[in-house]
């Protein structure tokens, strides 16, 4: 039987590194999804997620309600990503569209998707990434965001309508906007 997050947190707090490893593997995609909703660079998003886990690991004993690990991790992740985004704007890092891509069509598509996502507000973009990129269910997203499943469904529906408008347009290149 799969151990709950609370059980894993409790075990990790008394030194069970394997339990923290399970938490890491279980929620890594969630963390990267949240980070990516605030960072245009997917590599930087991974860095942010990893840094968020480091913060979580160092401060795990301060988590009062061990059932709320994902919400807590999500908060850390947003803060970390926002901090890195500020650094990114100051240092002009290498972004995906600057990287060499062997498939030009894919490069264009990535650009389109990125531009489309940035037409959404932060909350909607996060829900979209958690669903379409991290692969979380509505219920899992609801738990992470501490909202109802209906609220997640509603946010997704609104975001989809916007995205469909942008991404369904065959002439849309994104780069020309």
């Amino acid at each position, binding site marked *: 039987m799969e151990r709950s997050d609370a059980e894993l947190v409790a075990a990790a707090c*008394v030194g069970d590194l*394997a339990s923290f490893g399970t938490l890491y593997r279980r929620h890594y*995609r969630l963390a990267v999804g949240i980070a990516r909703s605030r960072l245009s660079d997917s590599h930087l998003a991974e860095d942010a997620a990893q840094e968020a*886990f480091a913060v979580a690991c160092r401060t795990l*004993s301060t988590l009062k309600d061990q059932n709320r690990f994902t919400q807590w991790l999500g908060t850390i992740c947003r803060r970390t990503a926002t901090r890195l985004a500020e650094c990114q704007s100051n240092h002009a890092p290498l972004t995906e569209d600057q990287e060499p891509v062997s498939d030009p069509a894919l490069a264009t598509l*990535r650009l389109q*998707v990125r531009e489309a996502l940035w037409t959404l507000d932060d909350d909607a973009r996060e829900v979209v990434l958690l*669903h*379409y990129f991290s692969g979380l*269910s509505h219920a899992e997203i609801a738990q992470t965001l501490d909202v109802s499943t209906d609220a997640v469904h509603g946010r997704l529906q609104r975001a989809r309508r916007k995205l469909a408008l942008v991404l369904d347009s065959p002439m849309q290149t994104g780069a020309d906007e």
Partner: protein
Amino acid sequence: MNESSDHSDWEQRLRAGLGEPPIPDFADWSSKHPEALAALIPALDKPAPHRGTSPNPPVRKTLMQPWKWLAASALIACGLLWFWPGGNLDRSAFAGTIPGVDEVQGISWTSTYYLRITSADGKRTWLRQEERRHAYRHPGLYRDTILDEAGTPRVVEITDARSGKMLRLDLVAKTAVLSPPVGRPDVRGPFAWVGDALRERLVGKTLPVKSVALKGQRNVDGHSANIVRAFISKGDDQGYARHDFLFDAESKQFVGLFFPNDGNFDPETAADRENPAEKEWSTMFPMAALEHQIVLNPKLELADFSIEPPAGYSFEKKPQPTLSEAEIIAYLGAAARFNDNQFPDSPFVAFDSEKFNAACLKEAASQTAAEQELIALHDQFKLREIFRSPVRQFVDDHAVENSFHYVGADVKVGEADRIVAWYKPRGGKSFRAIFGDLSVKEVSEKDLPLNLSN
């Protein structure tokens, strides 16, 4: 998991544009964030109730064992490996209890040694594995069993760390030899020094621990273990040796120690691990040792730790091996001639071991006189079971504490007016000074270049 039922074109384009989510790699993350994981290990950080200090000056045992084993095999003439000077270790008042490390009453374990053997023509290598079984009973009683290749016990060494005696039983020849122990067994237990390394960052009061890092996990005897990797000084500017301390992921019990002689050696991935053994060989080199199969509080009979020779065994008492002043002067001279007629920077690491190993591998006819002289002395000392630096052994045995001082760096062999070293012999009133021409003179304190006495 994905509840989207609308597989419209734009969604497919969205997914394709986002790409696949990354695969979590906890081991990689662990290696990048050891300090974060360290925060999860309370046993190493949190203070525990104060415990009394050890009644006897404890010293380490385990790190000496590969050397003992090398000596027993008498196969290696080259290399200064795994030498660890003993020391006086105080019990720390700031310590959490690590099962298997602290306050051990009884423990048994196995040492597995990995050897790399080179063929007679020097072109092929293969690995050999040997084992020793150990048991410890508090306070300070050790029983080490050496197995032959078939796994049959051949030699048993019983050590009483408190009395400083070791009984060596050859089970085949039926001989019993009582002598001082090799190294300085730790009265506190075989792995007490592991606690010193992790808490005090110092082993034997002299060997600093350069770094400690968490390196993920590995399987030890069927259990998942956290790897705590420490680089510990070898002493005398010999660099740092990697030690992987292994703690059970669940119980936090100390379950193993892996220390490779070559920092990157792994017996599970070594290129020659499956090479066939050959009958003839030229060199044998210890690559790594693994202490494992650790059992806490096994049933241990006190009679098995007796240093009384058993009935039916011939008995011999051996004095502690030591070196004379003349032998040490000869050794320093040989080392200087080996070093292009210049005395070494340190008397305790008197020659470059790589150069020495290379000389050992030459045909005798190709060796220089200086090489032959040093190799002969080196072998002679090893056969007398002196496994430490010869100069260190001499100083510990014959010099008044802190009276030995070496100033020989850059002195040339033959420089009669330059002092290489001086010391005060135990029981002596004046100092003995060794000069560049390898002469030795009795001198008064005022004749020494500087006063370093306490």
